[in-house]
C-alpha cells in the first residue's frame, strides 16, 4: 500500500509543477527554488509532516521534501543545541543530498563530454 501512496502523492506533486510550468512559463530552476521554499515553510508550520505520513517517499523524494528536511533539521538542532541550531540545522540535515549531488556531478563531468545537440 505504501507504494501506491508514494505513486499518487509523488505524481500529484509533479502535476502541480507541470501546471505551474504550462500556465506561468516558470523555468525549471524557478520551480525547484519554489518547491524548496514551499517545502521549508510547510515543514516549519508542521503541515508537511502529514503529507509525509500519507505519501512516504512520494512526499520526501520531490524537492518539497528537501525543503521539509531543511526545516526539520533546523528545528531538531535548535531543540538539541539552542540558538546556534538556527545556523547549523538546515545544511546539516541536507548535507548528504547536496554532497552526493556535487560529488557525482563532478565525477560525471570528468568522464563524459557534452552530447551533440
Amino acid at each position, binding site marked *: 500500500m*505504501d*507504494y501506491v501512496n*508514494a505513486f499518487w*502523492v*509523488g*505524481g500529484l*506533486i*509533479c*502535476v*502541480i*509543477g*507541470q501546471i505551474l*510550468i*504550462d*500556465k506561468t512559463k516558470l523555468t*525549471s*530552476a524557478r*520551480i*525547484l*527554488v519554489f*518547491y*524548496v*521554499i514551499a517545502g*521549508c*515553510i510547510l515543514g*516549519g508550520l508542521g503541515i508537511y509532516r502529514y503529507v509525509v505520513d500519507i*505519501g512516504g*517517499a512520494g512526499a*520526501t*523524494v*520531490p*524537492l518539497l521534501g*528537501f*525543503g521539509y528536511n*531543511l*526545516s526539520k*533539521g*533546523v528545528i531538531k*538542532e*535548535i531543540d538539541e543545541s539552542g*540558538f546556534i*541550531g*538556527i545556523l547549523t540545522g*538546515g545544511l546539516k540535515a541536507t548535507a548528504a*543530498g*547536496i554532497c*552526493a*549531488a*556535487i560529488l*557525482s*556531478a*563532478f*565525477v*560525471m*563531468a*570528468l568522464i*563524459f*563530454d*557534452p*552530447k551533440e545537440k
Partner: protein
Amino acid sequence: MGKEMTKEQYDEMVKKASPNSPIVKNCIKAFIVGGIICTIGQIITNIAKFYGASTEDAGTYTSVILVIAASVLTGLGLYSKLGKFAGAGSIVPITGFSNSVTSPAIEFKKEGMILGLGAKIFIVAGPVILYGVLTSVIVGIVYYIFG
C-alpha cells in the same frame, strides 16, 4: 453549408474543442513519471529499513541513491530524453535537482575547471541552496522565539 474548410479554420476549431489537451497530456505524463520515481524511492526506503536503517537514515540513503542514479543517467545523456517526455515529472523529484547539477558541470567543463565546471555546477544548485537555507533560517528564528 460549405464543406470546404481552410486549414486555419480547422485549427481554430480543434483548438476550441480541446483547449486544454496539451496541458492535460503533459500532466498525465508528469503524474506517471513522477509517481514512478517516487515509487522507486519508496522501494529503496523499504529496503534500507529492512536492513535496519532508521526512518531518517533510510530517507537519506534514498536521496543519495536517486541523486547518483540521476547523475549517471545525465552523463549518459538519457535523463534529458526522459525530461522531454516527462516535463515536471522529471524536474520536481530530487533526481531533477541532481540533473540540474550534473548537466551544467558537463556542459561547461570546456571553460575550465574553476570558473567553468567549478562555478557552473552551482548554476541551479546555488539558488536552490541559497533560498532553501535562507528560508530554513527564518523558520529557525521563528521557532526559536515562539516554539
